């Protein structure tokens, strides 16, 4: 049975993807700062922004050839103007979104290299191409994820591993729960497909990237809704 590691599995898109994967027969290892007690799959407590915490949580999987995929869905956001964003908030967003993605990739990739195949799916945001005002720090962290994705894809290509990023617009999750509706509508209006995306829309792309037929898709950022 193939193992898929999902970060940010406590809630939001990470939880949705983890549930979908579990229902489709994958062994799911969900990672989160506060692992859900009701999850029907294995959950582990981890702070992805701490490389030692990631290494400890995934130590047993580093050599496990059943590890097929890593989905880096852990992420935090904070809408604020750059000049009014506290430095600690800047640091926390970059550490969780960018460093967290890198640390998890570093820890999991060796298992996939030994296996000779694998899928890594990172999460960016439609905000990168749309340059949404008030999200500069969040977008900076995600632009970093996109750059990392492109380069890491090249490094892992010889080992049969693809690395891609999914960039959703505003999806109805806890991440944007406090964002006013008019702000959400304004972003949706800039998408090519002017409909607010759903977790199912994101899952459909995750599912496509996980399939063996997607072995020639790597280093790409797929924009949910289009930009």
């Amino acid at each position, binding site marked *: 049975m193939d193992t898929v590691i999902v970060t940010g599995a406590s809630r939001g898109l990470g939880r949705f993807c983890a549930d979908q994967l579990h229902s489709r027969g994958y062994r799911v290892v969900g990672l989160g700062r506060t692992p859900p007690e009701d999850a029907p799959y294995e959950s582990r407590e981890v702070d992805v922004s701490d490389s030692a915490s990631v290494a400890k949580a995934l130590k047993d999987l580093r*050599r496990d050839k059943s590890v097929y995929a890593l989905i880096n869905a852990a992420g935090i956001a904070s809408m604020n103007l750059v000049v009014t964003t506290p430095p600690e908030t800047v640091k926390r967003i970059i550490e969780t979104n960018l460093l967290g993605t890198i640390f998890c990739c*570093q820890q999991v990739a*060796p298992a996939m*290299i*030994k296996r000779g195949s694998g899928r890594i799916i990172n999460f960016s945001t439609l905000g990168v191409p749309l340059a949404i005002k008030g999200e500069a720090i969040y977008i900076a962290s995600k632009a970093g994820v996109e750059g990392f994705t492109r380069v890491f894809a090249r*490094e892992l290509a*010889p*080992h049969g591993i693809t690395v891609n990023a999914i960039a959703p617009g505003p999806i109805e999750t806890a991440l944007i729960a406090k964002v006013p509706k008019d702000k959400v509508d304004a972003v949706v209006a800039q998408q090519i497909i002017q409909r607010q995306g759903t977790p199912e829309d994101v899952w459909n792309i995750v599912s496509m990237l996980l399939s063996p037929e997607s072995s020639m898709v790597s280093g790409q950022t797929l924009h949910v809704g289009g930009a």
Partner: protein
Amino acid sequence: MPVEYEEIESFIREEVAQLTGQPAGSITENTVLVGTGRVVDSADLVMLLLAVEDFARDKMNAHFDWSSDSAMSEARSVLRSVGSLSKHLSQLSPDA
């Protein structure tokens, strides 16, 4: 029982030979692993490091941290050559 340096170097030479397709006899302690004149490409180097990590754990009960700053700094890298990597491994302390 501690693993002798010769056994470590022999293991690394055989791994490099296997990865490069070169005869084991042509791989020496001076064979370059990173930088100018290297015999392994980046993909093979990763495979070598994974094998060495396993060797350190299984044979020496030691942890080989190949993502450390010192390991990956080319100027003083333990990965320069078969010999420097073998020496680094031989100096690892067993895990508590």
